[in-house]
């Protein structure tokens, strides 16, 4: 019997081949008539107003950092989650472990909100 992971590899291979195939077929089938006007960056019907390399809001970066912290915390609870029912037989230890993790997350969330990390205007 094939193990599951070989099937996943097969499925991934199928995706890669099909996507690259679609891409290459489309490049081969489509015409190629480059013109200077066609190759300018898109702007809403007027000549290019301003370039793309402007400055962007630092908020996006803050959200990225917050995500890292929260997602890592979540991932740390996953192994516990799958065995929680067994651990629950031995008393409240596992529950308090979950509680501590969630409490840290809530404290971090309150701090982030209080500092205005999620305020968009």
């Amino acid at each position, binding site marked *: 019997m094939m193990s599951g992971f070989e099937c996943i590899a097969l499925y991934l291979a199928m995706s890669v081949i099909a996507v690259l195939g679609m891409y290459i077929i489309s490049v081969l089938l489509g015409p190629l008539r480059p013109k200077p006007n066609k190759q300018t*960056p898109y702007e809403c019907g007027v000549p290019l107003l301003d370039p793309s390399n402007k400055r962007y809001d630092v908020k996006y970066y803050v959200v990225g950092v917050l995500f890292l912290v929260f997602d890592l915390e979540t991932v740390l609870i996953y192994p516990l*989650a799958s065995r929680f029912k067994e651990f629950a037989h031995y008393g409240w230890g596992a529950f308090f472990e*979950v509680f501590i993790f969630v409490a840290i997350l809530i404290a971090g969330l309150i701090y982030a909100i209080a500092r205005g990390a999620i305020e968009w*205007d």
Partner: protein
Amino acid sequence: MNWVIAIIKVVFIWTWCLLWATVMTWAERRGSAMIQDRLGPNRAGPFGLFQPIADGIKLFTKEEFRPKTARKILFNLGPILFAIPAFSAYAVIPFGDKIVIGGKEILLQVADVNIGFLYVLAIGALAVYGIVVGGWGSNNKYSILGGLRSTAQLISYEVPWGLALLAAVFVYGTFDLRQIALEQTGTFLGFLPNWGVFKQPLGFLIFTVAAYAEANRVPFDLPEAESEIVAGYHTEYGGMRLGLYLFGEYVNLYTLSALCVTLYFGAWNLPYIDMSKFLGPISYGIASFVVFWLKVMVFLLSFIWVRWTVPRFRYDQVMRLGWKTLIPLALFNLLITALFIQLTV
């Protein structure tokens, strides 16, 4: 022989997902027309059913032009990075129970692995790269803004999504999606079907809202809000490059719906009826496949229905909903679930 079966399953379910993704493009246009009292595409074939084929041919034969200012490698890489994870995520989700042909039992699932759950989460998260690379590679201010917005939105909703799924793992005690499906037989509290949605009502709600955001669907289609940033991260794309983004999105919808059905709506189980008792081995396999598919279709149609019913959120509202409502709710749900299990064992 095992290899042959595995290859047949892989090819079949892969094309099946793509087929329904294509049909969805038709259903979306017909559905929106029905809701807005128009006709929609009705010329190509009966009820315009061949419209997706015509669209596909059009996308394949379009010119693959690229703006001069675009970053060449990243621009080409974007759609591929988006489409491959989207097409691959279905590998571990079951599409039926099992079928017995010639004394040989075949599981209706491409790969039955004990960490299937984590595979879906991991592969699903990779799609962000396709969006941010495509947006950055286009080197157009609308594309970059769209890519940034999309990244912030996707990662913001991944946290409540993961937390809602985590609560489901608490309930089932396993990462194996087939095991999760098998546990949803029988009844719960004596009269309800033993489905995840009755054990995790809040978790299901959070999962659904976050899934709409993860799939970039209305009311969370901020990355491509056409009145603000044209078409967002795929402003500069055309031809099959655009096609890969669009198909990837619809295949994503199919995967998300199937995941929702597996976790919260009893997978292939019918309420109160045990099909395996009175159906033959082959007809049972087919019946479980059809039941699962019909449940997925209900969710797919609800995606269309919602799209043409609710207006789009503003960006600050999206972020507020994600961080100030969904994450605290998801954490609360997690604690309640853990407490409930602790008290009932």
